[in-house]
């Protein structure tokens, strides 16, 4: 037995190395973007707010401004790097909040059943029925601009994404006999659910969270694009695209294109990662049975 187990581990490690190239690229890109955002103050060649009207609307490749400048001569690369912070942090906040809410509601609905389940599930359906962007715009109308209210409202809007999946997986897992064996050991429902059911539902939660991160990023970028999210001079990718509109009409689309590409690539990479996580989980399940 002691001999076979290292061999099994080695096999698992080899399997891990054979991951698809797209996944490796996606992960690498996300790490790069996150590092860029984190280290923006150190790495960025210019201050994001430093204007230079003489240098306005420089095309990419200009010396000192690798991605060009915008209509007031601010360095696009530096702004994209600084913008990554808000553009990534805000959706992260949304995901974390909705993850906690959704997991709690999903588990409660699955374990309690009966009318509790009915009320919670219908509640989630109702929230699910509203377009998230509409709710966010409504929140800005009520609470004024800024990111706090949109983050909280988006978190609520995304709760059903996670809650419904958690509920269905928890019901499925809850029927498995191992939970009964811990109940027989004299543990209460809460402990059995949190210590034994939750870890088995966790992979699904993580996969689902990765997907909603992508949606949240796009929603928040749209909000900033509409001028309702980040307030200038702070920059995120959405507001950069918005401010670049006039430049596009003047024939230099660069300053809007770069943050747009950043949004696009980040969302694609996050979705790839999320789908892989979700897929590998369902693959594991089918191997088991």
């Amino acid at each position, binding site marked *: 037995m002691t001999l076979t187990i290292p061999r099994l581990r080695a096999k698992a490690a080899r399997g891990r190395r054979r991951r698809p190239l797209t996944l490796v690229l996606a992960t690498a890109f996300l790490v790069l973007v996150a590092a860029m955002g984190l280290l923006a103050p150190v790495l960025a060649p210019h201050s994001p707010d430093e204007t230079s009207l003489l240098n306005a609307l420089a095309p990419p490749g200009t010396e000192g401004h690798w991605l060009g400048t915008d209509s007031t001569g601010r360095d696009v690369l530096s702004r994209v790097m600084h913008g990554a912070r808000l553009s990534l942090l805000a959706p992260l906040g949304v995901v974390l909040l909705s993850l906690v809410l959704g997991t709690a509601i999903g588990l409660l609905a699955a374990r309690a059943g009966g009318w509790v389940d009915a009320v919670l599930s219908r509640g989630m359906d109702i929230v699910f029925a509203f377009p998230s962007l509409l709710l966010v715009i409504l929140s800005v109308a009520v609470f004024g601009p800024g990111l706090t209210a949109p983050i909280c409202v988006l978190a609520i809007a995304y709760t059903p994404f996670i809650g419904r999946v958690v509920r269905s997986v928890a019901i499925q897992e809850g029927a498995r*006999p191992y939970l009964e064996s811990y109940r*027989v*050991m*004299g543990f209460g429902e809460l402990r059995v659910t949190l210590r034994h059911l939750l870890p088995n539902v966790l992979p699904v939660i993580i996969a689902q969270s990765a997907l909603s991160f992508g949606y949240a990023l796009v929603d928040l970028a749209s909000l900033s694009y509409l001028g309702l999210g980040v307030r200038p001079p702070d920059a995120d990718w959405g507001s950069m695209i918005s401010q670049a509109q006039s430049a596009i009409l003047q024939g230099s689309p660069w300053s809007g294109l770069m943050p747009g590409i950043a949004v696009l690539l980040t969302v694609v990479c996050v979705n790839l990662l999320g789908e892989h996580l979700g897929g590998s989980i369902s693959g594991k399940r089918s191997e088991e049975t």
Partner: protein
Amino acid sequence: MLQKKEAETARRDALDISGLSLAVSRSGTDVPLLAGVSVRVARGETVGLVGESGSGKSLTSRSALGMLPRGARTTGGVTVSGVDVLGADRRTLRELRRTRVSMIFQDPRASINPVRRVGDYLTEGLRARGVSSREAAERAPDLLDQVGIRDPRGALRRFPHEFSGGMLQRVMIAGALSTEPELLLADEPTTALDVTTQAEVVGLLKTMQEAHGTGMLFVTHDLDLAAAICDRIYVMYAGRIVEEATGASLFRSPAHPYTRALLEASPSVHGEKAVVKAIRGRPLALAEAPSGCSFRDRCPLAEESCAEGVPPYRAHGASTVACLRPEEVAP
């Protein structure tokens, strides 16, 4: 007279189920599942509960933990080492499950949380009982050593999927006995294992149970296995106990036609080749059983009198049997 004696022994018994009837209501109508089941397990005694699927044997063993189906209504009594289980509140029940009763399940692989290490499984039961985490960690390797797992310290760090079914069942046994329970419920503990592993696990279970002085209720559909290891055996059919006898005598001289039919239905490797006799009809649940003796539809000896009320228990040879004419059941 008899009741007085029972009351005296109740304090000593690990498990005392007396006249337990259980019904659930499904869409407005009552569906009876158990009727007048009485099972007694003394400390240190091994008692078999044998019956086909759906006869209510698992339900009976679970009633000792207070784990009844939703909306179940019961009459009769279930007492585990002096504690009234049916009347107990949640706290008492949990306390009972933590300290006095343990259960071993049919499929060990399905009964241990797959994402937690074996060590977590073992220490969790101990810690729930109030043992400090350090002490629990110290005792865990000994527990595994006792059930014959090599390299217990290494085993504690492994996950359930790295073990074979037999090894995992040993882990479950170690966990179940770690709290020194007074009653061990073994619900078909060897059904999911292959035959050689089955023998090892049963042997281990028996040794451990004797060493700890635990009373064991061994639920199985395998009459031969039960006869081999049990001091006494109850045979269940359609939610009722139809015969009670010591292990050896049940095997030699069954007193109920059902017991006899069960014995004839299992092939034997010894002696002359005999045709295995199937029992005609299919096993019934209590709700669909005929009036009178539940077995009369399938019984070769059935007469009209069998339909008149449930046969009372009577002594016949070494057995207590619910049959009107046990003397006609040829050994």
